[in-house]
């Protein structure tokens, strides 16, 4: 089958299903007894298995299948949910995600998941994984003896069925453990000879370690096989002892009654065959009671909204075409103004309104809920809290808040960093928290909300807060600030020092964060998106990192200003207000011209000088037009010749040839067809 055309869809859907798995697993961890959630996970896993098998990604299908078995056991109340079991399931989901990622980037989705698979199998068989770090265990280690039976091997349903059926037909089932001599040289050869004898006398059902491992000599000296045969135990033992270099052969008859009970417990369950056989495992999920525990789960039911998938590229093209229209609209508006023809103006006016609506629709089409970024955090925080032995809950609020796709693409990494920072440096260890009289469990709250033309994302923790003195001390020792300036800094400014480059307050550098290169990168990324970040913190109470982001990056509102004959655009997002000042109001402070603006001393920036605007004759105006702009807490007044007005413009880049132009962030095309440059106010501060 030609599957390539479906690959994209497969990847998208796999990601969705894996995401659903993670979300429901987290929910399950909170409500371990809610079997309806298990049903949800099972369904996602099952669909994923079916899809990947169809697409020929067998590793993916195989691992999903193993995971499904465990889930099935949980659903049938054979295994009780514990965090340790969930650890293994989470690990499997992680592996699956990696595989899908690999497939998406052109790979074949293959990955070494032996140890996880091994654990899934053992959990299914009723074993409890050791606390944590399941993957560091040797996969080749023989499974421990289970408490209920005397058997060394662990069987799945299929194997149990086969064994019980053979016993019913009068064939005996044995478990044979063979120990080779310590000085045995050709272990694989001996294994081969043992198997050859066995296969002559009956059927090998299972071996531990697996046959592949045995062939590769990946075992110490002992291996076990489950075997059905008509021969008697003593005959078998004698035959096997004839193989040279075999030390001990133990043959025990399998007590079929022991696991017969287990099989009878669920007679309705169809016989499970291991690997690949897909049709037999279709579960009876539709019968599951549709009990939803949370509102979030309700919102995610697919039937709720009718949607189609559209390639993002097409949306980008649509956006580009619309940008062209916006430019022409500006042009038409200015022509209509010049001509002064009533009907023309009216038509242009109507068209502008329709285009405004169209613009809203196109922009919202490109909007993606921040959920797509947020949804990986619960799992991440869970992992961090297990790694650091801290108790942390992550609360996500406003995940449905929407942001432009271009912003979404960029915001993920900074958020990861900030959340890790909060978990690692913010939240204290449980014992420390107890001493401080706080609940042992720390809370990190991730909030997103709209406000005006911005989206705010806040990360609040109830941890240690920022230690003012420690930050100051560090900042001075690292040369970020001088001791003289240190005294005049406000608390907020001190907090923001941790965003300066080359700064890290963690005493111990951990692998989570604390390399001292992180937070300044966060700051740079956010500023490059046209946003900004601020910190509020109270020691021992907690910190809040607040990020302000523009809704969209491609069409922005600007104030057009004129200097001599040149027109520049200043983004409205940085403007506080405009004002006209008299020459007499300009004061001098250290060669810097400043004004007194509502009780604040604001430095003036003469754009004419910064941009070296050529002037035919010097103008000496009594009045100056000033645009007051802001960067964080800092203000500045940009002096221009005159204001033209406010306009929506399309942001264009200056191209590859002109890069890093001072204080210019881009260009736009005006209604008259001319290019105007957009001023980067941040660079002027």
């Amino acid at each position, binding site marked *: 089958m030609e599957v390539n055309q479906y690959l994209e869809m497969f990847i998208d859907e796999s990601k969705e299903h894996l995401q659903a798995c993670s979300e429901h697993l987290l929910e399950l961890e909170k409500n371990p007894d809610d079997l309806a959630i298990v049903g949800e996970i099972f369904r996602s896993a099952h669909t994923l298995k079916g899809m990947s098998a169809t697409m020929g990604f067998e590793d993916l299908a195989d691992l999903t299948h193993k995971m499904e078995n465990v889930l099935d056991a949980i659903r049938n109340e054979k295994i009780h949910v514990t965090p340790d079991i969930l650890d293994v399931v989470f690990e499997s989901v992680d592996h699956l995600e990696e595989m899908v990622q690999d497939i998406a980037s052109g790979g074949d989705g293959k990955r070494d998941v032996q140890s996880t698979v091994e654990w899934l199998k053992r959990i299914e068989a009723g074993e409890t994984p050791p606390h944590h770090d399941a993957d560091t265990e040797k996969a080749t280690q023989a499974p421990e003896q289970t408490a209920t039976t005397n058997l060394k091997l662990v069987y799945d349903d299929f194997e149990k069925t086969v064994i019980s059926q053979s016993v019913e037909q009068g064939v005996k089932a044995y478990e044979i453990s063979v120990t080779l001599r310590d000085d045995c040289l050709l272990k694989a050869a001996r294994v081969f000879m043992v198997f050859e004898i066995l296969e002559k006398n009956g059927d090998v059902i299972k071996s531990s370690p697996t046959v592949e491992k045995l062939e590769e000599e990946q075992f110490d000296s002992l291996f076990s096989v489950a075997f059905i045969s008509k021969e008697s135990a003593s005959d078998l033992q004698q035959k096997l002892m004839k193989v040279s270099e075999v030390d001990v052969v133990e043959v025990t008859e399998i007590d079929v009654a022991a696991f017969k009970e287990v099989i009878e417990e669920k007679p309705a369950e169809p016989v499970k065959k291991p690997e690949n056989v897909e049709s037999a495992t279709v579960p009876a999920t539709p019968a599951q009671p549709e009990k939803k525990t949370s509102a979030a789960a309700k919102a995610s039911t697919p039937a709720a909204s009718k949607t189609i998938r559209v390639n993002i590229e097409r949306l980008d093209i649509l956006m580009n075409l619309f940008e062209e229209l916006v430019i022409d609209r500006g042009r038409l508006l200015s022509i209509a103004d010049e001509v002064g023809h009533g009907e023309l103006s009216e038509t242009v006016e109507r068209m502008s309104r329709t285009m405004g609506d169209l613009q809203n629709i196109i922009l919202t089409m490109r909007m993606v809920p921040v959920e797509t970024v947020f949804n990986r955090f619960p799992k991440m925080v869970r992992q961090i809290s297990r790694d650091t032995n801290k108790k942390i809950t992550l609360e996500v609020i406003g995940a449905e808040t929407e942001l432009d796709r271009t912003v979404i693409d960029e915001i993920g990494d900074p958020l990861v960093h900030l959340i890790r920072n909060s978990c690692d440096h913010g939240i204290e260890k449980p014992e420390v928290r107890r001493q401080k009289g706080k609940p042992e469990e720390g809370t990190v709250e991730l909030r997103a909300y709209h406000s005006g033309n911005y989206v705010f994302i806040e990360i609040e923790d109830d941890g240690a807060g920022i230690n003012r003195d420690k930050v100051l001390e560090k900042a001075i020792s690292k040369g970020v600030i001088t001791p003289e300036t240190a005294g005049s800094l406000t608390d907020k400014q001190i907090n923001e020092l941790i965003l300066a480059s080359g700064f890290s307050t963690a005493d111990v550098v951990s692998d989570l964060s604390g390399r001292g290169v992180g937070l300044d990168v966060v700051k740079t990324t956010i500023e490059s998106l046209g946003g900004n970040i601020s910190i509020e913190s109270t020691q021992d109470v907690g910190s809040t990192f607040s990020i302000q982001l523009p809704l969209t990056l491609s069409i922005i509102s600007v104030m057009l200003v004129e200097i001599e004959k040149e027109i520049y655009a200043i983004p409205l997002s940085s403007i506080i207000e405009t004002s006209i000042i008299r020459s007499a109001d300009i004061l001098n402070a250290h060669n810097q011209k400043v004004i007194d603006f509502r009780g604040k001393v604001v430095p003036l920036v003469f754009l004419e000088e910064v941009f070296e605007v050529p002037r035919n004759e010097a103008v000496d105006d009594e009045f100056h037009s000033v645009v007051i702009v802001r960067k964080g807490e800092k203000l500045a007044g940009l002096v221009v010749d005159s204001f033209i007005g406010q306009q929506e413009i399309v942001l264009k880049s200056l191209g590859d040839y002109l890069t890093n132009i001072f204080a210019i962030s881009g260009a736009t095309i005006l209604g008259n067809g001319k*290019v105007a440059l957009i001023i980067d106010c941040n660079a002027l501060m």
Partner: protein
Amino acid sequence: MTNAVEQKFIKVIVFQLADKEYAIPVTYVRGIEKLMHITRVPKTVSYVKGVINLRGVVTPIIDLRERFGIKGSDNEDNVRIIIVQLNDMEVGFVVDSANDVLDIPSSAIEPQPEVIGSLEEEFISGVAKLDKRLLILLHLDKVLNPNK
């Protein structure tokens, strides 16, 4: 020219800077525009005249005359902007006039004679002699490299 059929030709756009004729292979040329409003970009090198709106694309403009240190002609009527594309870079060249599209046989192209020794020397990939005309072939990579 008996074996003209077998000869390879290069199609070039010929333009003039002061009294000399230059050529750029036509494959690099996206179009020739009349002089239009150029928006000055502050704090750039002197030969970058600014940017223009080329059908919705903001395109930087380089004044080749200033780039090569040649004084251009006073007659502004014939001044043209040649839009060239190199890799993903689109740039316009201001020239005194763009007069011709020619096929030059590759045999007519000679490497740059070393004696000339003017500022523009390093931007030249060769010269082509055609009858009585001398065409200077430009090395676009070097013209567009701001370090030279």
